[in-house]
């Protein structure tokens, strides 16, 4: 009976997301038709790198102010229910964007601001254990959300979640605003294995259905418009099938975000280090690992095999580990890894961060 009732209500499957691929392959400003080809409408605005004033008069309300600080992020994905978009928010006037570290960032992402301006962004900091990434776009004087020192919010507090869930907004269309409250603050790690996430600290549990496709990276603010958290990736209880609505509390992210903004840390590969001679530098063989075949333009650094008694095996590296960081530098793909190893003296130990399943592990490989 219920199934039957549900079917009374007409719905359609979600639309193909505006994938990064589409966005990037289409030349800027090419004359795309609209009336005949309505689905292109969103792409069209994405393509324009121009700022337009919105037709509607500005609204003097809190939600509008937050919307201007939330950005749309487009990257990899676009198949098998992996949306090629997510959300983020500006954390500095110079264009630092906080967002979640996800497959969407497997390519250099595109950031579209509330005013419709479109930027190619650089991933300048990732913190896999926090599922956090900080992007940088080349802009200034942007409205941004201050990252507060402490989490002042507690459960029962009303909040707004602002994100581009379902990719509803495109171009200069404002992000979606939802309201609700913090239902609880709790550790996720107590339920490890239930939720597949690398993050195992405290989370803000929300009583609003915030964590939808594309919402990850959205801003959660309190009654005064102060940032209290960042919407996390979609998590589903593997036992009950229930989707979790949560945000990463801002105090957990603050140091990581602050360090990147201040320039104290970055995961951008340091290409200033000199390239050493082949027989002096590290390489995959000296460390004792074999990666999966490098067949893609950008093949992730997945470990295919580990040599016995090698530095890699002593450190506990395993098959199927994904290498994310090398000495704090982001390993975007195998090319980056081999290049960076050329810059490390083979007598030196190296630190890597790997992802094993949903765990993030630091490993130290000693020669």
């Amino acid at each position, binding site marked *: 009976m219920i199934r*039957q*009732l*549900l*079917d*009374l*209500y*007409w*719905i*359609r*499957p*979600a*639309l193909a997301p505006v994938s990064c691929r589409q966005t990037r392959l289409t030349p*800027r*400003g090419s*004359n*795309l*038709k*609209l*009336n*005949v*080809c*309505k689905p292109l*409408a*969103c792409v*069209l*605005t994405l393509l*324009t*790198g*121009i700022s*337009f004033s919105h*037709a*509607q008069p500005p*609204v003097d*309300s*809190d*939600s*509008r102010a937050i919307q201007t600080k939330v950005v749309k992020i487009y990257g990899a994905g676009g198949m098998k229910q992996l949306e090629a978009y997510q959300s983020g928010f500006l954390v500095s006037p110079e264009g630092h964007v906080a967002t979640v570290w996800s497959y969407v960032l497997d390519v250099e992402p595109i950031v579209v601001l509330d005013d419709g301006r479109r930027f190619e962004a650089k991933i300048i900091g990732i913190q896999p254990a926090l599922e956090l990434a900080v992007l940088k776009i080349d802009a200034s004087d942007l409205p941004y959300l201050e990252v507060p020192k402490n989490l002042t919010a507690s459960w*029962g*507090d*009303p909040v*707004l979640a602002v994100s581009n*869930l*379902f990719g*509803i*907004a*495109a171009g200069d*269309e*404002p992000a*979606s*605003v*939802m*309201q*609700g*409250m913090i239902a609880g603050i709790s550790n996720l790690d107590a339920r490890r294995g239930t939720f597949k996430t690398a993050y195992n600290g405290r989370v803000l549990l929300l009583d*609003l*259905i*915030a964590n*939808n496709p594309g919402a990850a990276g959205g801003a959660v603010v309190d*009654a005064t418009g102060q940032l209290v958290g960042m919407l996390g990736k979609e998590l589903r209880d593997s036992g009950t099938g229930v*989707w979790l609505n949560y945000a990463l509390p801002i105090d957990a992210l603050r140091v990581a975000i602050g360090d990147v903004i201040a320039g104290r840390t970055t995961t951008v590969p340091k290409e200033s280090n000199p390239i050493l001679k082949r027989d002096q530098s590290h390489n995959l063989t000296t460390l004792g690992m074999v990666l999966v075949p490098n067949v893609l333009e950008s093949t992730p650094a997945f470990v295919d095999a580990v040599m016995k008694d090698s530095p890699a095996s002593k450190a506990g590296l395993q098959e199927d580990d994904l290498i994310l960081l090398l000495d704090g530098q982001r390993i975007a793909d195998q090319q980056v890894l081999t290049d960076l190893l050329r810059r490390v003296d083979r007598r030196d130990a190296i630190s890597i961060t790997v992802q094993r399943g949903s765990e993030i592990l630091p490993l130290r490989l000693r020669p």
Partner: protein
Amino acid sequence: MTAKYWFPIAARRSLLALWLLAVLPSGLVSVSAAEPTGVEPDPIVQAAETRRIEAINRAMPSAVSVFIPGGGGGGSGVLISPEGYALTNFHVTSPAGTFMRCGLSDGRVYDAVLVGLDPVGDLAMIKLLGRDDFPYAELADSRKARAGDWCMVIGNPFLLATNLQPTVTWGILSGVGRYQYPAGTLLEYADCLQTDASVNPGNSGGPIYNDEGKLLGVVGRCSFEKRGRVNVGVGYAISINQAKNFLGYLRSGRVVDHATLGATVSTDPDGGVVVSNILESSDAYRRGMRYNSEILEIDGRPVSTANEVQNIMGTLPADWRVNVAFREDGKTVRAPVRLMSVHRQDELIEKMGSALPPPPPVPDEPPKDDPKDDKAPADIPEGKAPNGDLPGQETAAKSKKKRSIPEAASKLIEERRGFANYHFNRLEQQRFLTQLLKPFGDEKSQFNRWQLSGKTATGEDCTLLVRDDEFAMEVGQFVFEATNKNELFEAIDRNLIAGVLPALDAWRTMLRVGPKSFGETYYKGTIPLAGERPLRDCTVGIYGEMEVRWLMHPETGVLECIEVMADSDTDPAELWVTWNGDQVSSLELRYGTEPVLQLSVQQWNRGGAAE
């Protein structure tokens, strides 16, 4: 614990203000937890709560729970007039056909019949029967709605309202001016509202109100994706401003279509929205729009992106004429532009039949029964549904067994191809004729032969004569005589001043024979007059090979303009009528935006004799 307990959701625009309210009482928390009854609520909170309750009480009576007889399903709706006219979704009425039953929060169930359908905009109009004092919603201006505004959805989710008490869900607008793609060309949600108030299956067609209880729109759609068909915090509503554009069309009992400009546009990387392709047969082209023209404004709304153009066009009915401003060759042109329809009429009816899982409400074959007969004319053709796997259909099909429609309702149902319910068009045609006759009276003989004389703007004498098979005019040196309508067609096609004759004669003929004998005649709905509001009542009649449109003022019923279209590629002749009381004081003929003949009427002989 108890910030929760105290959390107020108030009728306030500013979330900030509201939240401060929410935070304030947290000091009371422990007290209230211990002694919930002994605490005086914060007066601000109480006032906010009172306002909210008032808004709900104001809104609730106009919410309709729609049930399809025989357990075929249902949805929601909202009353918009005391006579019982109500809005719902096309996809709600679609499985019902022409008859349904509707519950109101007063606990009563009313019979309802289908009035009009807008499959592209997913709107339907129905009429509840049995009262002339139905509670109805006050319409808001949805253009003023903003993200962050409080709102509520009232309806019949999961068809829970078996006790006829609708469900209220409260939330905010998450976004305005949203666009949700059509399925093919139907069910397009343009310039729509997005809300986080719970919207579930069964809420379809129901109202979304603002925090004052005024109607903001009609809920009809959600984003669900992988989470199953329940609310995930994203519901969409057709804006009430879009619905306002279509109210007249829907009242006509027709299946109505949406508009297209006849041009495609793209957002220019250097800013602005430009024409990327344009049909030479379009009215936009005739008004001077060309490839690369920059479009500045449509129907009074500035546009700067292709998305905005699509958002506005999606809310406009076919064949409307709206003001468009564009820049072409350095010059800014502002002109009323006639919009085209997205579909051909047959195409729309066909698509309507195949677009949705439930079968279409209008069977393809002409009505077999006498419409007055009270046999069920609305039977759903069995096994016609394309997707047999939907459990909803089983019951719909089972319920097919001769369900009888009460006579009071079946009297108001008349099926005809191209119409949702021809009965309502017939009513409007009668109203049209009454209004058209009003200045003249009922004496038919005065419509046998019309002879007008007067002076043009340049002072030349002018006489016009129309009667069956004789059409003549003389203005200064210009003499025109015709004996058949093909010649009149020619005159319009060539934009001659003789285009005044077919307009005048169509007027005369309609007065003489009425809509039944005039040729195919139907009430179209309400449209702007040369781009201007208020919307005028428009009735269409086929006159020879020409299509005639009478445009009348919505309140006074006064005839203001007669348009005669010859070829769709050329400007129609427009005869503008100026009245002095019941007398026509002047006539003006226009093609496009140019007046070609102005005539102050001195004498109007309405011949008594047929000869």
